[in-house]
């Protein structure tokens, strides 16, 4: 090789001696911050999970290694049944969700069905309603004797027998599905949106009709994404606490989460609960793994990005059939339960239906003026949600930054840690937090700090997905341009990255905020007398079956949520909640 270096300088300037000194001199101040982030992740994610695992192998008093917790956790048929119930419930709810969501998604994405915007709003509304409120709404609607539907049925037919009963396995599954089908809708629709019409044209030209094409070409193409959505609903269902607790006891159905709750009955058997939670954790992790595998398979549209031109399919009269289906789903998932809740919230006794002498504002008055705990809970809900949304977004953005810019070795491990809480059901995470931080030395039990940290961890994956997607949009050269001109990394973040990510960050913040305002399962074991939230208060109220006051509190929560959703849609666009942000 011939190199023509102008001067073959005899002895270069001082050889790299005193490397350490120079290294220190060249150390970026931001590096310390990155290390701090690793510490934060360790604190929020690693330690609680590790503690959960350790606790599950520890004897209660002595702390010695033992397998007896596992024996206790699975030593009774009832406990095993609860696990089986959860799995069956998850499968059924996922199946029902798919039946509801897939036709809607297809109609909204590919066809000329009327009212596509309306269908989309339905999905958004169903997504916003906290699961336990939907459950209460359905108790009011489908209580076997007093539910509106059954009352109407008796009135019409004179029959004593009830038409529908929410307190059954199918009832429970349906109520859950009515709240979780938006996941499948979002996954399926986003995949359908990417399929080029040419794919369908290719089938048409070979002689396939619209239905054949849809069933043989279009839907198979989005199958991985659809399945990913179904898996998500399954996981959400088996992790759900509120709905099974409210409907499950009268329905005589015990599931994993309510069984975990029982292990926390005095005397608190956190170690047995930890052991009992392990299979749930493993199942979730395995299915998330499967979901990832499905989504990463090459050749499917979910991965191919823009798919070319798309045309709507003309359905002819069939479009009214699909529209009818959307209306049914809308009524079942949003309109009916909401009317029932609103009616109950203005009633003296909800079973008495619409009548003037049944109308009252007393429930709202009691909550806003007569109930100290309610006011405190409303304030707490806001403060915790805002604080955890801020913390989660800050942390997620910082980690996304470190990972994207390869600032630390094992960056992917950090990303994994950020996403890990996704596989931890809220109630299990709460047990981990309880085991790790409730007692000495930190003594965080019952403090706002613990609630905020738990919420932060719980929603870190969503925040991270948003942060990482945002970071992906920012070309690294944007920052390098700052640095080469003499600005440090932090200057680059402040003057370029943060302003450019404003929208993405705000969207993520609002999403986490809204989800945090309704979070029940992570809160239920961690609240103290001064840190109750609306969701926990709702749960406490539901013990007494005090549905009128409860509905009023739910109404307040929904109004607050709607305000924030409105702000989000205004500032960021109407899609901000329904972007496929969970992955």
């Amino acid at each position, binding site marked *: 090789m011939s190199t023509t270096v102008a001067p073959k300088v005899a002895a270069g300037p001082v050889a790299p001696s005193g490397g350490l000194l120079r290294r220190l001199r060249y150390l*970026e101040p931001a590096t310390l911050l990155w290390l701090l982030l690793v510490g934060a992740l360790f604190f929020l994610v690693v330690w609680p999970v590790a503690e959960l695992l350790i606790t599950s192998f520890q004897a209660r008093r002595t702390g010695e290694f033992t397998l007896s917790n596992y024996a206790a956790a699975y030593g009774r048929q009832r406990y095993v049944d609860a696990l089986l119930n959860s799995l069956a419930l998850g499968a059924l709810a996922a199946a029902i969700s798919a039946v509801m969501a897939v036709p809607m998604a297809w109609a909204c994405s590919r066809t000329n069905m009327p009212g596509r915007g309306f269908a989309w709003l339905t999905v958004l509304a169903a997504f916003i309603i906290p699961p336990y409120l939907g459950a209460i709404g359905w108790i009011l609607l489908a209580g076997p004797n007093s539910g509106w539907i059954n009352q109407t049925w008796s009135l019409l037919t004179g029959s004593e027998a009830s038409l529908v009963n929410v307190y059954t396995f199918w009832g429970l599954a349906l109520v859950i599905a009515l709240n979780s089908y938006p996941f499948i809708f979002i996954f399926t629709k986003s995949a359908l949106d990417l399929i080029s019409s040419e794919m369908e044209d290719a089938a048409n030209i070979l002689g396939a009709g619209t239905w054949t094409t849809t069933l043989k070409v279009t839907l198979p193409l989005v199958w991985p994404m659809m399945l990913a959505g179904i898996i998500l609903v399954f996981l959400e269902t088996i992790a759900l606490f509120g709905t099974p607790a409210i409907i499950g006891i009268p329905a005589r159905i015990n599931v994993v989460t309510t069984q975990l709750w029982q292990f926390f009955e005095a005397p608190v058997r956190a170690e047995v609960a930890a052991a009992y939670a392990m299979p749930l954790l493993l199942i979730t992790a395995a299915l998330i793994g499967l979901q990832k595998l499905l989504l990463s398979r090459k050749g499917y549209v979910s991965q191919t990005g823009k798919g070319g031109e798309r045309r709507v399919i003309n359905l002819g009269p069939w479009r009214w059939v699909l529209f009818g289906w959307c209306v049914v789903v809308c009524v079942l998932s949003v309109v009916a339960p909401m009317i029932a809740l609103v009616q109950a919230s203005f009633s003296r006794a909800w079973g008495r239906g619409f009548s003037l002498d049944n109308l009252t504002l007393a429930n709202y008055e009691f909550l806003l003026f007569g109930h100290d705990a309610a006011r405190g809970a409303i304030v707490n809900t806001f403060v915790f949600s805002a604080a955890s949304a801020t913390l989660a977004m800050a942390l997620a953005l910082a980690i996304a930054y470190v990972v994207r810019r390869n600032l630390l070795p094992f960056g992917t491990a950090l990303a994994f840690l950020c996403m890990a809480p996704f596989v931890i059901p809220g109630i299990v995470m709460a047990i981990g937090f309880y085991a790790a931080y409730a007692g000495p030395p930190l003594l965080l039990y019952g403090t706002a700090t613990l609630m905020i940290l738990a919420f932060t961890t719980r929603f870190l994956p969503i925040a991270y997905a948003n942060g990482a997607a945002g970071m992906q949009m920012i070309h690294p*050269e944007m920052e390098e341009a700052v640095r080469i001109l003499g*600005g440090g990394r932090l200057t680059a973040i402040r003057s370029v990255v943060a302003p450019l990510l404003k929208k993405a960050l705000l969207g993520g913040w609002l999403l986490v905020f809204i989800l945090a305002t309704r979070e029940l399962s992570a809160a239920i074991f961690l609240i103290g007398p001064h840190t109750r939230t609306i969701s926990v208060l709702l749960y406490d109220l539901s013990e007494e079956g005090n549905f009128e006051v409860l509905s009023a509190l739910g109404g307040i929560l929904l109004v607050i949520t709607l305000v924030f959703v409105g702000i989000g849609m205004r500032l960021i666009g109407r899609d901000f909640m329904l972007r496929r942000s969970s992955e």
Partner: protein
Amino acid sequence: MSKLVLRNLHRRFGSFAAVDGVDLALQEGEFVSLLGPSGCGKTTTLRMIAGFIPPSDGTIEMDGEILSSPQAVMPPERRRMSMIFQSYAIWPNMTVAENVSFGLKLRKLPAEEVRRRTGEILEVVQMSHLAGRYPAELSGGQQQRVALARAIVVKPSVLLLDEPLSNLDANLREEMRFEIRRLHDEFRITTVYVTHDQAEAMVTSDRIAVMNAGKIEQVDDPFSLYNRPRTRFVAGFIGRTNFLEARLVGDRLGLDGFELPAAMVQSAAGPGERVLLSVRPQSITLHHAPPPDDGDRVSVPAQVVECAYLGEHWDYVVVPQGSGTRLRVTAAPAQRHQPGEAVWVRFDPAQIVAIS
């Protein structure tokens, strides 16, 4: 003393050596291009100079101070350099003026000076009238000018350009080449320019370093590089050429089916040794009849096998009689031959280079 010295620079990514022992020195005010195909390590080299990537081995020195070594790397923000990126990296959240003045503000200059210098440089790049615009409202060429202004206004010790013109359309690209050269002539900033486009490098540079597979093949001024390539790679990469295998037999260079006098070509090859010749297509001429033998040029009979008309010239492929060698020849538009036609091919020995 050299302004910027790269000494035995290596960069490995895993087992792949992206930069594999680069030595280069730039004089103060010199404009040097790193030219090579994609993946040759030129951008990695540039980013090591900027401080974005630490070297695996070797050092980078500026004004006698070590900036980068495997042990320690001075962060980019302390190198007093500036850089123009392939994506321009114009910050969309700032106006043109804010973009340009950003570096000056970081240097904590008085507001008055920041304003004055920003105004001046925008004048130089003819962007004064757009100072209040946001980047989204600018064309590609305008964004490029903003990037130039932003990089130059801080009077960097070294200016780095990373394929700055690759995103522009052809006409604009040509215009900007001269613009960059003009700005260099005006400010004399020591510059390293990375490109895969030889025309760009030849227009702008004082010297060009041709890189291949992580190594520098040759560093020379544009004229020498084209006319005296030292390696097969350089000869093939800079312009088009015919590679001809020859063997030195006595005072003749024997080729496939014909021969040339050895004295015509400078070569260090000994008797019987193989020699590789590079013959540019435009150094070969085609003739209908045998051209007069004027002593220092050689003609051989041949046959046209392919032709293509490109507007500015003809491309012919001819095969000398009794030979398997396909020669590419460029001819003026007026000079027309049909495939199958018998022609005479004439070589200009002065334009034949023997490659080691």
